[in-house]
């Protein structure tokens, strides 16, 4: 099922890419893929949690915001580069994610998903507002020379640094696939995700697995948050828009389909930039995202009916 879906995605992607090349706007592809990398690398950790713990974490973006502020403080205090800060920050956010899981989300695992939604919504508000009290709403940004690294091809100059996000996204997809299929812990996690009761029967500690997956996803998100501060300003509400975006991407790919998140991100990134490339359609670029999501979801439901 997931493979077939991914195949369809690939076909659509190729069509979009050809269309972009046909009108000869190479920047559509460049900007689109750079944007897609960012979307995907933030959405993938959420997809991991949703696929295994079956929790929609509405505080997802706020977790990244916390990671970004931790990185910022670390870089200001020690002068190290955010890329070096990735590991310590991942450690901090893994602990943070684990503690939040133990204290709150774990208590609501048996509750209806609505309770989980509102619980994580409350966590999100609290995190944003605490950050606002400590740091105020004034934005912060450290500038790094390498962010403006560029390439010239003929008349065309474009930034290349943001390709780092697509690299991160691909690494996450490959790494998670290896982890979930090759390691014992990973296999156990996958089993819990597919059937928690069955996994418990064969002796897998479901609660421990959930806690571990939550910490792992938080660590990945923490690394992402560290790199995020190289290209983006940070402020208390910086993460919030990414929560809904990630949620939509996962829905588009289908739950449990992590490579699909990357595909959906590329499709959206490129289509958005396609609209942005023309004057008349620029203001409408945002709508692509939502129209595509509805189309994909409805299309799948109709196909499901037929099957």
């Amino acid at each position, binding site marked *: 099922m997931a493979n077939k879906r991914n195949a369809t995605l690939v076909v659509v992607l190729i069509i979009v890419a050809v269309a972009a090349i046909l009108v000869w706007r190479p920047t559509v592809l460049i900007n689109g893929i750079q944007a897609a990398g960012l979307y995907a690398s933030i959405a993938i950790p959420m997809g991991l949690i949703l696929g295994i713990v079956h929790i*929609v974490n509405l505080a997802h973006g706020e977790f990244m915001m916390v990671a970004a502020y931790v990185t910022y403080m670390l870089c200001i205090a020690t002068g190290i580069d955010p890329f070096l800060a990735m590991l310590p920050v991942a450690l901090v956010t893994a602990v943070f994610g684990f503690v939040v899981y133990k204290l*709150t989300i774990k*208590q*609501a695992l048996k*509750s209806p*998903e*609505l*309770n989980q*939604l*509102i*619980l994580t*919504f*409350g*966590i*999100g*508000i*609290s*995190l*944003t*507002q*605490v950050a*606002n*009290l400590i740091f105020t709403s004034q934005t912060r940004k450290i500038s790094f020379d390498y962010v403006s690294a560029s390439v010239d091809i003929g008349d065309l100059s474009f930034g290349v640094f943001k390709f780092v996000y697509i690299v991160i996204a691909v690494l996450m997809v490959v790494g998670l696939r290896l982890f979930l299929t090759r390691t014992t812990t990973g296999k156990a996690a996958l089993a819990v995700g597919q059937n928690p009761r069955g996994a418990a029967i064969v002796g897998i500690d479901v609660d421990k697995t959930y806690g571990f997956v939550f910490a792992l996803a938080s660590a990945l998100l923490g690394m992402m948050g560290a790199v995020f501060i190289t290209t983006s300003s940070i402020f208390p509400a910086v993460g919030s828009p990414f929560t*809904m975006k990630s*949620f*939509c991407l996962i*829905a588009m790919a289908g*739950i449990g389909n992590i490579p699909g998140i990357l595909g959906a991100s590329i499709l959206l990134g490129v289509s958005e930039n396609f609209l942005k490339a023309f004057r008349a359609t620029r*203001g*409408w670029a*945002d*709508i692509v*995202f*939502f*129209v595509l*999501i*509805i189309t994909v*979801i*409805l299309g799948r*439901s*109709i196909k499901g*009916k037929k099957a």
Partner: protein
Amino acid sequence: MKLKGSYIAVVAAAAIVIAFPAFLGAYPLNVARSVMTYMALAISWDMLLRSGQISFGIAGLFGLGSYASALAVLRGGMNPFASVLFAAAFAALVAFALGFAILRLRAMYFSITTLALMEIFRIVMQNLHDFSGGPEGVVLPKIIFDGYSPALYWLCLGGLFLTIGVSWYFEKSKMHLALTAIRNDETSARSNGVNIFKYLLIAFVATSALQGMMGAIQVQSYGFTTPDTAFDANFLMLPMAMALLGGIHSTIGPMAGAVLLGIASEWLKLKIPYGHLVVYGVIIILVILFMPQGLFGLARKAMRNRRKAGANNE
């Protein structure tokens, strides 16, 4: 006998609420309007939830109603009161058309689709510059009742009463059985001959009309709207939180939740000018953790325990 008692209580409560402007100043009335708006949204959202469908489209339909009403007055010269009805009808019509496509969806996919529709409404309103005023929105030439506080209060109260009435009708009629059956076990409901789609469509259209109506009342009471005000994400998350804190699948639960959160937010703001939203967020977390059934659920449990204790004593 018991039924009669509760009717008297309801009528008395309604009378007190109607009489509020006689002894409350403009400020409490203003806060009350805001609480009532959220209350109506929370109740209407809960009405569809009784079928198991979690809609994320509250703010979308609220905003759509705001714009329908504002633009009907501004571009069509409609009477402001008529525009409230027009907005409700318009939201109902949109819901009816969309319902055919999206009511097939279940669980998270239904939620996401309603959320995406809300964003689409917002982007359309933001980009139709000449018609909808674009990002800067529209300002109405005058406010309904010339801004007279008690009248604005009663208008909002009227919208709320209508919502409560429809919600009660849903609770007491066969809608209740149908929606509960769909929520509990859709397959067996279908095999028992429940026309699932019909009931979902009725519920979706009715709740959308109510949400659109509240949007229209809001825009006529403040005399302006912008895409950011009309489609504010708070109109999505707060009604959900209120319904849950009060107790879902009922009319009284969302009402209790709206009073609790609405008044808490205003009170906290005055007590802790800087940082009240932290406390607000923590309250939501604590209530969900320690009262997962909501206030109403807690009360119901307490009542049941007492009754059980009473039965044991006999």
